[in-house]
């Protein structure tokens, strides 16, 4: 249990409320199950959760609310934190009130000019059909193979994974990932091969199970913790071992500047997200990489190739320059939609 909670005795935040905005998919559900619920039990605070589709939508919601945000805490992709910090909409949490931060790998403690507190690592690679591929694919170029016609999926434009896909394409073409013009020209070749965009991870799982898809990416294995344990039935495999690299993004917890709630409960909640047990549970549930160096995980999770630990990042991990991505995000989303739809 986090120190701030221990120190304050039983139910120290009873009667207080925290408004949380998180994702609508299974990663958001995992936050409710493994963070919000035990936090409520431990502190007596009540977490009122709202869930939405993507980081882009979270950014849009917070911008629309301006100086009257509805939320106290938001978990989102790194680029969203950078954009909102740039807009002057975020507060800087007090690091002295986050004792668990000491256990976090120093590279992942804060970001967005101190407005974002590291949360977990979001990692993306290729998802493939184990019936089609005897061995995991080694390059994003597999998506351009003529046999993938109508058996390919890509991430939807609103997801940060779409930006990763543009980067991956650029790197596949020999660039550093920022060679967007080349990448979009190459991506245009995929237009007639795409069966669907992966806006609904459950639907993607169903399409693999029915053997309708061969490959897709850049996409996060995080959605498929159960499926990846049972490839015989799900037909699903995932790989980070790709020539052009895999994508790793530090997700952040952020606090809107004019949040409606109480400072104590906000800091207690953020600290709780960094707890060694919580980080371990989240890693096992949704295959996110834990950033707490003492994260408590089972032997299976420690050995899992789908959970990237900070020490495994190495050269293969592509970590975006968030300021660059924040700068080009809107333009790339538009071009991605216009190129592929």
């Amino acid at each position, binding site marked *: 249990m986090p120190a701030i909670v221990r120190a304050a005795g039983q139910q120290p935040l009873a009667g207080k409320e925290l408004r949380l905005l998180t994702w609508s998919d299974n990663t958001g559900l995992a936050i409710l199950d493994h963070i919000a619920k035990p936090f409520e039990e431990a502190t007596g605070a009540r977490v009122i959760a709202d869930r939405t589709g993507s980081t*882009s939508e979270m950014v849009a919601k917070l911008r629309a609310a301006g100086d009257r945000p509805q939320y106290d805490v938001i978990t989102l992709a790194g680029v969203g934190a950078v954009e909102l910090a740039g807009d002057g909409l975020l507060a800087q949490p007090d690091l002295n009130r986050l004792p668990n931060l000491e256990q976090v790998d120093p590279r992942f403690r804060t970001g967005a000019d101190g407005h974002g507190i590291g949360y977990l690592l979001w990692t993306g690679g290729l998802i493939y059909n184990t019936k089609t591929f005897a061995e995991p694919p080694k390059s994003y170029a597999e998506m351009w193979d003529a046999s993938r016609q109508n058996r390919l999926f890509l991430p939807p434009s609103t997801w940060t994974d779409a930006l990763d896909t543009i980067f991956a394409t650029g790197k596949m073409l020999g660039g550093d990932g920022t060679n967007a013009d080349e990448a979009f020209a190459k991506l245009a070749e995929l237009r007639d091969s*795409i069966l669907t965009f992966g806006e609904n991870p459950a639907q993607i799982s169903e399409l693999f199970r029915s053997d309708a898809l061969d490959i897709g990416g850049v996409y996060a294995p995080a959605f498929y913790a159960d499926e990846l344990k049972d490839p015989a039935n799900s037909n699903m495999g995932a790989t980070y071992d790709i020539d052009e690299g895999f994508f790793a993004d530090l997700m952040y917890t952020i606090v809107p500047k004019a949040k409606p709630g109480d400072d104590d409960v906000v800091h207690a909640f953020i600290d709780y997200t960094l707890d060694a047990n919580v980080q371990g549970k989240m890693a096992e549930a949704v295959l996110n990489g834990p950033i707490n160096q003492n994260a408590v995980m089972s032997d299976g999770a420690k050995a899992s190739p789908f959970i990237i630990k900070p020490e495994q990042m190495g050269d293969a991990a592509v970590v975006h320059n968030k300021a660059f991505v924040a700068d080009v995000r809107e333009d790339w989303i538009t071009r991605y939609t216009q190129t592929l739809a």
Partner: protein
Amino acid sequence: MSIQLTRSKALAFSLPALIAILPFLGACFFIFRFSISGEPSRIEGFSIQPYLDLMTPYFGRSVWLTLRLAFIATLLAMVMAVPLAFLLTNLRSRFARRSLTIVILLPLILNLLVQAYGWILLLGPSGVLNSTLRSLGIIERPIFLLFNETGVLLGLVQTSLPLAVFPIVSSVRGISREHLEAASSLGASHWRTFFDVTVPLLRPGLFGAASIVFAFNASAFAIPLLLGGRRVQMMGIAIRDMISPLFNWSGAAAAGMILIFVTLIVLLFSAWLARMTSEKVEH
């Protein structure tokens, strides 16, 4: 017996409805104002830039796709609606008539999400059709009737069918038996009577129904989103994408105005066509 209302009484009775329409008109005004805003995220200044920004091949494709799918769906819905309307008016059993009415009305009563998932259960990769064909050994991999234009068309036709049937039912009920008997007594065959008497008398109702169905389909959002797999970028989807995640409210408003304008043009053309053909019939 008919009830005659004076103009002032009619106006008084219509007042609640007129008041209810006012916010909608207000929203239309603000959409127009936003569409000529100098700022993409708020109403400030004046500019036609939001319209100029839409002059892209992508948006052109979206407009064309919207018109094409709305037109085909309208045509299919009308072809199905006419015999249904005749069946409904000719059923003698009250139970059968009510049952058929409920069945036709179901797409209006049921939530669009439920209807879309119904299609997925039927035609999806693990749906009834694919499972059956697989178990019979006819296919190895699923065939795709969803997540493409076919899927969207199926959804559009299904959801708009009731809007086509009931205006035509009213027109069919309005056809005098005397006209049909006169044609028959003059020696016209059933088909000749149908094409030379019934269809011309039905024409205003057909155009009216087609106009409603077209406008409904052109502004569709949920069906292309759920059954198009994000690949069928009708204007409703394109407008949504401009609002979130791009936060381009003025662009979305401009696209909305274009959708309203294009739909109005089609409706006016339809009304003109109905008037012209009615005049021909009268002559």
